[in-house]
């Protein structure tokens, strides 16, 4: 079998990743689009760029996915063009505009806290642990809209199995990247950066909880939280931390970025619940993107059968 090799590129010719990520700003600022474009093509071998839009091989179906006959997946351009990712700006279209600055390779995830020893995994290693599964889940935003996303990922418990946690570990904390070079809006004081989220250990172990690395069969677009994000389909979307760089096991229930920002508005659990209103709006209905009429919101976002027992005996109004 012939082996094809591309012409080698001298290290001096390779644009630094930091400069490369800012290339669009550079083009805008200097107005040298054509020249920069030509340089960009030559330098376009950056590993992060190679990942963009790549098909993920060997995806297996999952019985946890929604039935496409009942609920159709939201179109790709809506899932990737309507995002809350405040590190990249305050508007729904800001992430699409600015997330190209994110460098998703090289990327490592530090696992620490209540573990025998802290471990650092590269994202390439993590993606080899389990077969990529397609999980078509509902995604309900706390703001009152929803979509259906065909995620590609694997159960978070695959990571927890490898983390060698101690008996003290009761909660898992997820830390997102907060690099002002790549994420311009972490310079604004509107959230207490870095973005952190957390789950109870049994929630994190639940087979519905996944780390997603793709959607629609492709490598996860940056604006959706590349290279690795949390997806917990029975909770409001903001619980799903994006672009995770650190996972910490802790003994006590940690503060999360949104409970710090509004303790009466965003609870630790934040399970989707049509009967518990947000203080400023009702959660009884939702607008599925692409639909004209509002839908009724389902308890636990329609996953009550799988997860309600995790909260047996708890007052869901108190632990909202």
């Amino acid at each position, binding site marked *: 079998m012939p082996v094809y090799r591309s012409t080698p590129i001298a290290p001096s010719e390779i644009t630094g990743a930091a400069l490369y990520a800012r290339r669009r700003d550079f083009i805008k600022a200097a107005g040298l689009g054509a020249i920069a474009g030509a340089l960009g093509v030559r330098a376009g071998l950056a590993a992060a760029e190679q990942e963009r839009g790549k098909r993920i091989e060997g995806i297996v179906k999952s019985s946890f996915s929604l039935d496409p006959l009942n609920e159709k997946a939201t179109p790709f351009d809506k899932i990737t*063009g309507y995002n809350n990712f405040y590190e990249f700006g305050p508007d729904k279209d800001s992430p699409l505009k600015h997330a190209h600055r994110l460098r998703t390779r090289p990327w490592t995830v530090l696992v620490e806290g209540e573990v025998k020893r802290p471990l650092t995994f590269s994202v390439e290693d993590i993606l080899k642990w389990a077969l990529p599964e397609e999980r078509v889940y509902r995604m309900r935003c706390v703001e009152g809209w929803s979509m259906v996303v065909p995620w590609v990922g694997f159960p978070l418990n695959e990571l927890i199995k490898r983390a060698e946690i101690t008996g003290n570990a009761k909660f898992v904390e997820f830390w997102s990247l907060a690099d002002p070079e790549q994420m311009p809006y972490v310079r604004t004081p*509107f*959230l207490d950066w870095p973005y952190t989220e957390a789950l109870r250990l049994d929630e994190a172990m639940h087979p519905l909880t996944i780390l997603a690395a793709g959607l629609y069969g492709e490598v996860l677009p940056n604006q959706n939280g590349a290279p690795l994000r949390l997806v917990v389909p029975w909770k409001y979307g903001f619980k799903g931390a994006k672009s995770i760089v650190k996972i910490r096991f802790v003994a006590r229930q940690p503060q999360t970025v949104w409970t710090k920002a509004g303790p009466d508005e965003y609870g630790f659990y934040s399970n989707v619940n049509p009967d518990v209103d947000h203080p*400023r*709006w009702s959660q009884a209905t939702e607008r599925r*993107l*692409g639909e004209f009429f509002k839908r009724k919101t389902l308890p636990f976002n329609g996953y009550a059968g799988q997860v309600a027992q995790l909260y047996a005996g708890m007052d869901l109004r108190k632990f909202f």
Partner: protein
Amino acid sequence: MKTASGRAFNPAFSPTPNQLAAVKTALFAVALIPLASLAYGGFNDGLGANPIEFVTRQTGTWTFNFLLITLTVTPLRALSGQHWLLRLRRMLGLFCFFYAALHFTTYLWLDQFFDIDAIARDIVKRPFITVGFAAFSLLLPLAATSSNRAIRRLGGKRWQALHRSVYLTGILAAAHYFWLVKATALIYPLIYAGLLAILLGWRAKKRIASYGPFPEKAGASLRPIRFFRSRP
């Protein structure tokens, strides 16, 4: 050139009736651009992934924009001496009402689908809806008394007193905006509230200045304060 009063002569521009009509027509057309762009987006799939939210936001934003523009007329006129600007104020105020009505209709029709129960609950329970509804309600009498006939019937003084309620509407609109956004988007209501504060602050400063100076010398305060011009 100086006038008799010693102030710099200001050759105030005063448009002829034809010129004024042309300016008003142009302004009318420009003020309809936001609506036209929404309509264009609606027919060309240009309203984003959540069109109803987009329309609600755009109509709300343009209501506030026209409110601020309307409140700018008086300071601008005072600072520039271009008194004819006053003749555009009614149209600007009515456009504020027009976009407010579209905003409210979007909420009633597209967002809540005339679910009167849900709307009533919203108005009572959600502070940002309560305040927004109050702001819209305050605009209704102003729109209703915008004609020359209404001004004559009310009398200038009372008409002006009624229309000063627009300052309260501005404050309610700012509160509505603050209450509805998340912490991460606070920058927008902060900008609007800042502009409103400048426009209202200018009026407050002028009002305070018109009260005249306080007596400065100690001797002046020893004299009894005169309540009445003559003995009652």
